[in-house]
């Protein structure tokens, strides 16, 4: 029997351990000489930040990070940050949310493709967070005294990156519920981060215990009666729903109890005031053809007021 999803992320997988051993090696290789290109600077900052944000599981990574960051020319770091296009990155991240959501609805190979695509995009967002962490490290460990040109440049780069990251994430954190289909992987990634980093890394951590939502989205039947037949009977889901206010709100918000059966009073009012959508008007007209009561209501609605 597999462990409940709330706890399976607490163990650090051998894959993740192996990945960061490779990160260390790549970082060492990449910083044999001074890093002058924008792209290379971005890569080195991301690798260094990866290690710095995961000290709890990797041990003290200060030496690796210091050696790497010192090799990055400030102008190269600034050029890297200048090259980050927040609108394009926002779009990629939004797409990752859509892909993760579609992975819930698909099976087999298609699900694997959506999952892979989403995880890659989330990893790219994480790499930007790591680059930011490396810049912050460089500034925090610069020592006292007058600020050098290098530090001033790095400070400008970090400020610019902070601003861009905020634009990239804008409006997406609340949509983290779309990521629940890949929660197992997200929990692994979240658990590998230092505790102080987890909340900020919303792409890994937000709603990462809300596996319950998968059963809300994945209906086994299309019949109306099945719409409320959520998997709350499983012990884990019931316990989660009892304590998770986000899931409680989501269940309430997503009720399809208002799927129309007849023309309602509020539909008539919206239609009269030009606020009904085209589809709503079409529903009313089509439905009324087979429902005398609703047809009568529409006839009465057509009566002039003056």
């Amino acid at each position: 029997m597999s462990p409940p999803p709330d706890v399976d992320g607490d163990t650090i997988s051998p894959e993740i351990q192996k990945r960061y051993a490779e990160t260390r090696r790549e970082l060492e290789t990449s910083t044999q000489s001074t890093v002058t290109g924008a792209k290379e600077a971005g890569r080195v900052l991301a690798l260094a930040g990866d290690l710095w944000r995961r000290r709890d599981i990797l041990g003290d990574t200060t030496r690796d990070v210091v050696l790497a960051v010192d090799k990055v020319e400030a102008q190269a770091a600034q050029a890297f940050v200048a090259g980050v296009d927040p609108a394009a990155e926002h779009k990629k991240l939004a797409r990752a949310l859509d892909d993760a959501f579609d992975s819930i609805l698909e099976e087999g190979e298609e699900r694997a493709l959506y999952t892979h695509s989403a995880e890659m995009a989330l990893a790219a967002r994480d790499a930007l967070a790591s680059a930011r962490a490396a810049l912050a490290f460089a500034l925090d460990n610069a020592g006292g005294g007058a600020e050098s040109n290098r530090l001033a440049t790095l400070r400008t780069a970090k400020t610019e990156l902070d601003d861009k990251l905020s634009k990239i994430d804008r409006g997406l954190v609340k949509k983290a519920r779309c990521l629940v289909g890949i929660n197992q992987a997200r929990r692994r990634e979240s658990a590998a981060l230092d505790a102080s980093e987890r909340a900020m890394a919303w792409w890994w951590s937000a709603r990462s215990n809300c596996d319950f939502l998968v059963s809300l989205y994945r209906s086994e039947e299309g019949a109306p009666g099945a719409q409320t037949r959520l998997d709350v009977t499983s012990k884990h889901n019931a316990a989660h729903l009892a304590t998770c206010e986000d899931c409680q709100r989501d269940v309430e918000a997503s009720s399809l109890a208002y799927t129309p059966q007849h023309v309602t009073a509020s539909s008539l009012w919206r239609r009269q005031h030009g606020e009904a959508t085209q589809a709503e008007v079409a529903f009313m007209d089509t439905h009324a053809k087979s429902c005398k009561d609703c047809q009568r209501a529409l006839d009465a609605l057509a009566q002039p007021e003056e």
Partner: protein
Amino acid sequence: MVVDGFLRPGIHSDHLAAYDKLTDAELFDFVVQTRTKGQDPSAALGTLCERWRKAAGVVVRRVQASYRAGSPDDEGELYQEAVRKLIERGLDQFHGQSEAHPGKAASPKTFFLRIVKHAAIDAYRRQRELLDAPAKDDEEDNRESPRQIAYAINLSKRAAERDEAQSLYWTAYDRLKAEHPNEAGAWDAYHHQDLEDHEACAKKLGITVANSYKRVSRAQAYLRRYLQELMDEGSDPSPDSDD
């Protein structure tokens, strides 16, 4: 004559004479401004609605003709109901713009008469539902138990929420149509057109039964997601916030 309950102690008849000199639009503006200031607009509103009473009766009779139901006695009740609705929600909903002729000012009288019309439609639909409902034990029908009263109050309180939920549903469905037209088509056939049978749905859409099932299931998931996101937008006045 002033509508019952509107003429309060302290409202001098000079006020009423002054109201009589104002046009409907001027008096309605006065009501809205008085309300905005936190003052009681009852006397002015009473004068205004009284001007519309006769026209309201005509509207009620037209709806009665559509339903072939009702009696002259209903006019007073429905008029009172419409005034109540105007006070509770209508004053906030009236935007002064004509829906039929964008850019032109709407008449508050027409707006009120629409409320009358909708109140009448509601009443006669409810009446038909009662007539069509299976006969119940007389004693049970005539007795208003505390439970029934509580239920009625709860229903009334939830009316605004229900209107909002129905409106959100259609907004979510519109997004589904725009982003996933195939799924929207299947959902429309299955639920809106009352097919509620995947074989009939598949036949209508020219797809396999398995595909019908899949499209309706996917539509359901997307609608749930969109409703959740609409709720997020509703709870956060700035949709572009940083969360």
